[in-house]
């Protein structure tokens, strides 16, 4: 079973190839460069290096968000189109779940991966490894980091924070949680495409045509329109 994984949901561009229980290869970069230009060449290069042809693939897994709206759409579009034309199943995995799996596998406690969402907000969720399996404790959400850490202070064990945006929220985290908070090392902050492939391999396939990114948020115009409809009533 050969699985291709694609993550373009944030600054990290991640491509992974899994063959059965072997991680054949990974491509990861963490730079502010255009995913639209780079994602297909990255897939092509990795597949050629690993001697895998498109027809050899048996599943595609994509990071479904949250993250940059445009970024996540690029990965989802590529994944949907490839899975459709190759007639193979597609699974979507939360981008936060991938981040949690990438640094929290041997951590005894909760894992809070997050992506900065500007103006003090973060996309985050709460996860925990139990018997080597990643469990979700609190759903992915958009929240002020200051409010999030207050909620986490009520938890009963230590919390591992992992993010490429740790610096931006480090003070807020430390101030509220002190030693209860553990910060992931820089080498563990990039979501790993091999973890994405592994998580998605065992997930049920989605309905390909109706599959869309998990934006968490409505488009601004849509939200305003709904609000206007409400006040009309």
């Amino acid at each position, binding site marked *: 079973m050969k699985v291709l994984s694609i993550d373009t949901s944030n600054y990290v561009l991640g491509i992974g190839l899994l063959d059965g229980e072997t991680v054949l290869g990974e491509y990861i970069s963490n730079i502010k460069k255009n995913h639209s*230009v780079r994602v297909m060449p990255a897939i092509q290069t990795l597949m050629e290096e690993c001697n895998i042809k498109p027809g050899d693939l048996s599943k595609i897994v994509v990071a479904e968000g949250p993250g940059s*709206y445009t970024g996540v759409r690029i990965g989802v579009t590529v994944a949907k189109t490839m899975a459709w034309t190759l007639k193979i199943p597609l699974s979507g995995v939360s981008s936060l779940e991938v981040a949690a799996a990438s640094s929290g596998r041997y951590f005894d406690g909760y894992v809070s991966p997050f992506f900065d969402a500007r103006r003090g907000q973060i996309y985050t969720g709460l996860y925990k490894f139990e018997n080597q399996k990643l469990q979700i404790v609190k759903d992915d959400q958009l929240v002020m980091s200051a409010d999030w850490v207050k909620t986490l202070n009520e938890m009963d064990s230590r919390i591992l924070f992992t993010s490429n945006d740790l610096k931006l929220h480090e003070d807020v985290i430390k101030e509220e949680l002190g030693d209860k908070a553990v910060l992931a090392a820089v080498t563990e902050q990039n979501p790993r495409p091999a973890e994405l492939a592994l998580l998605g391999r065992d997930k049920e396939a989605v309905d390909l045509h109706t599959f869309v990114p998990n934006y968490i948020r409505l488009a601004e115009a849509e939200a305003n329109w709904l609000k206007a409809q409400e006040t009309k009533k």
Partner: protein
Amino acid sequence: MTKDQLIMGIETSCDETAIAIVKNGREILANVVASQIESHKRFGGVVPEIASRHHVEQITLVLEEALAQANVDVKDLDAIAVTEGPGLVGALLIGVNAAKALAFANGIPLIGVHHIAGHIYANRLVTEMNFPLLSLVVSGGHTELVYMKEHGHFEVIGETRDDAAGEAYDKVARTLHLPYPGGPHIDRLAHEGKATIDLPRAWLEDGSYDFSFSGLKSAVINVVHNAQQRGEEIVPEELAASFQESVIDVLVTKTQRAVKEYGVKQVLLAGGVAANKGLREKLSTDFADSDVEIVIPPLSLCTDNAAMIAAAGSILYEKGQRADLTLNGNPGLEITIHNESRK
């Protein structure tokens, strides 16, 4: 017997998710358009983020329908042609990345197409092109006169310096409280009224083929405003007719002048505003006695579609133009990129 050439076109530059399959550059085997207009009507215009979201929802459905209609397998395609720009960047990216994924997964050549080259080539789905020719491109985002000496070679001899004709239509429609999109409503009202209101025509400097519609738009708003202050009724039919007459007068007069100067054999109407009845009629009657052939595509090929992208892609494919997997959506793409050989 030579093998038939099959090109897939993909177009997602604005609010239409469109995929088509065209045989030998001229015969439409499938032309599927999933319009989002009902969704954007709520906002009185296209919202880019919402357009992008709809494209992701539609892309594989439209792909499947196009191939089923054409009864063609992806493997049979000679190339995939996709709108590279101009347009809404987030929307373009969906078509471009779907096209790249398809091209890679199936080992099929990829071609990037300029949206306006597509609009012009919609005409080749109606009749063969006869060079040199002139194309009048009028749409929501464009008003251009494009000269072509041969296939795949584009020279913009005039373009709008401010609003596109389509934008002016939408703004005037809003002033008259007509629903979005306003163009067809203005066109309809114009046919029910007489052009009684004196409105300006922007000819610009002598010999220029450029256009300008912002002055006209402001004049219309002034007429409505002044009437309101004097407590007078504006007859919408008369205002629409007067506005439309001014737009068409400038478009057709400049086209006629360019036809003479460049000695063209054909005039091709292109773009969404080419659906305008007033413009079609005026062009047809004014050129009725000339040797110049006027080509006006059916409405379904004037508005955004992917058959036109496939038709342009067919010629670019023959010219050897290819894109690689770094192809990107480019909102500011120039049509002249096709004049250089891109391999």
